[in-house]
């Protein structure tokens, strides 16, 4: 924008007044820019400082964690003792395994079930399409709490209570609406003409999907899968309600929270955040794809 203004000012010999206005505008713009940076940095600090705190607690010795006053300089002494103490506590490693199993089943099931529905919404206009979309939105907004109690009772009666598989079924139900909407927006971003062209050249609809659309939507599907994984990894309420022996990591931490020491708590808190720190980085470009769709 500034560049354009420069060119203009060269072509038309500007009067001193115009130049002054121009300078003022530039100054204001620069000031605004600096202010925006400042605000951005402040908000970043607001987000990062607590993470910094907990990371420095998790990556030091338990003695240091219990000490007071704590030093603001982090990671001194840098040690994996606290983390090891947490991971070796009873129920943590099985919980970790359960969490991963539940999240992987959830991810697979929800992608398998949601992909066709997402494709249908983005490619076809059919009677009931809007009702379907709206009901998906409504379902998305329903509280987990409402779902957990009756499902727990049903699972108890049918004898599949306290199993990672039944918890994965529940998590899939929670993730499905979001996954459908996200995938439909991913499919919508691939022009239908590509598929059409493939079919003109003799592909069957399935082949067109397999060889043209699928490679293009793969990153979007992967992003959505990661998001589903994180959602399942983070889910606490249903996991605590639906499991007793086979607890997932968050459920295990929550239930043992009252009887546990601070090193255990802080290491647990940090450990549960790690996937978020990594995965959000990879899918940040897709976030708007995911949530933008919801507000349409």
């Amino acid at each position, binding site marked *: 924008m500034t560049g354009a203004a420069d060119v203009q000012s060269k072509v038309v010999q500007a009067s001193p007044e115009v130049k002054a206005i121009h300078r003022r505008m530039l100054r204001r713009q620069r000031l605004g820019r600096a202010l925006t940076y400042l605000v951005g940095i402040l908000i970043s600090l607001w987000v990062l400082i607590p993470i910094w705190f907990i990371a420095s607690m998790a990556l030091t010795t338990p003695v240091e964690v219990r000490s007071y006053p704590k030093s603001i300089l982090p990671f001194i002494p840098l040690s994996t003792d606290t983390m090891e103490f947490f991971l070796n506590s009873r129920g943590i490693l099985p919980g970790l395994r359960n969490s991963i199993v539940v999240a992987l089943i959830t991810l697979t099931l929800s992608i398998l079930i949601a992909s066709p529905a997402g494709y249908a919404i983005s490619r076809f206009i059919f009677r009931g399409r809007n009702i379907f979309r709206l009901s998906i939105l409504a379902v998305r907004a329903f509280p987990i709490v409402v779902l957990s109690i009756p499902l727990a009772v049903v699972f108890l009666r049918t004898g599949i209570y306290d199993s990672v598989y039944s918890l994965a079924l529940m998590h899939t139900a929670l993730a499905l609406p979001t996954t459908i909407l996200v995938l439909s927006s991913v499919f919508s971003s691939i022009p239908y003409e590509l598929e059409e062209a493939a079919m003109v050249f003799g592909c069957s609809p399935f082949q067109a999907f397999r060889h043209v659309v699928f490679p293009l939507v793969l990153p979007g599907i992967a992003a959505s899968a990661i998001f589903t994984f994180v959602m399942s990894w983070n889910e606490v309420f249903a996991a605590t309600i639906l499991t007793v022996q086979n607890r997932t990591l968050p459920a295990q931490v929550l239930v043992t929270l009252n009887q546990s020491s601070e090193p255990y708590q802080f290491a647990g808190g940090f450990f549960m955040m790690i996937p978020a720190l990594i*995965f959000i980085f990879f899918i940040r470009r897709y976030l708007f794809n995911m949530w933008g769709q919801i507000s349409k």
Partner: protein
Amino acid sequence: MTTASRPKGRKKINWAPYLLILPSLIYLALFFGWPMVQGLILAVREEGALLTLRSEADRDGNLAGQLPRGIQVGILERQGNPIPPEEAGQSNLLTEVWFRIRGQDTEGQLIEGWTPERRIRVRESDESGRPVAGSVRSILASSADPLTRIYTEADEDSAVVGKMGARAPVEILDQATLEVWFLISGEFENETIEGWVPSRYIKTLSDGTQGRIEQGDTSQFTTKYIQKMVNDRFFWPALRTTLLLIVLIIPAQFVLAIIMALVIQADLKGSGLFLYIFSIALGVSDLAVGILWYSIFTQSGYLNSILQGLGLIDTPTIYLSADTRYWILIAIWLAEVWRATALVMVIVVAGMQAISREVLEAAEVFGATLWQRIRYIILPLLRPSLQVALILRTILAFQVFAVVIVMGGGDILTVLANETYRQYYDLRNFNVAAAYASFILLLSMITSFFYLRAVRTQEEVAE
């Protein structure tokens, strides 16, 4: 946003989309719709509230009346009854076993018939443990008939085939497991009702002539659980805290989220980094965030450390205790704003991307200040996005749970979701837990409706 693909001029219904959405429809019906209905039913139906009495000791016998759970009844008579095969494995049944035996009666004749297991001492069993031979026990009581009766059927009311003396050897041909039925009589609403019931519903007391109805077989509509919920001493504090948190959290989140979105939309160098940092919290669970802020507010935590380092306090302050509830509230508030603003931010940015740049630039050229641009252009155009974010956030705020447990253990300060958890997990009160869940659902629906209405009326006024 959609590429319509239906070939023109074709009247036939295209079934492809329906087939494609079918799996998700089935799944959602099975794991969403059905449990939801079950939950509502659980909250208002008392299972086994009434016990049906029959005029005969028979499942299909005529109805003699119904008695409520918990009342005392007299047990007048007992009788064994065949168990339907699908219930044979149940552990709560009071059963008796009858043997079909063959042996010589007192007159030396070979007879065959049924007698209760307690009358036979088993002497021999085959490999599978089935008794095959035994002898008749002697009856010790002098008053009673010293002989053991053999019946035509496994029923003491059936005809007597013959009698056997003590210690007579018998062959055991067959056995039948019967459930005991009681003839009970009880009083309900000034009416005495008498009838037969399976013994599994009755807990017998002391000498066996008295009993209590433990469980009924028919369910009944009840407001008992809802009343129990409302009268619970944690209900009103939980509701109050939940609503207070919503009122505190949501405005702060929206202001912060809009500022974040403006920073990201400002096209600065490094806005990708800002985007990453701002959206980190999107992937962090409420439990982890609770612990995160707990590490700051705990007695030996960072807040005290910093204040002491600056020389503002001499001894660490205790924030998270019963005497300082407001600090717990503040900690929960900070934790929730920290965590859930990212979600609002992403929705707002997605909405902002739809606002055309030309409009904003035009406004800037005409000298609109930042505040004017936000107030008159961005906010009105963002309304649909904000509405969705508002609904989502409010519904999620009703579910604040782990943070509350981390900060206050769930006792000092409680919220509705935590009460649901307590009723279910600590008190094992599924029905009251379901009542709480239904109440949260009701509140969510009311607020969503309210938001939708509020925004619509605004639009109507604008037009």
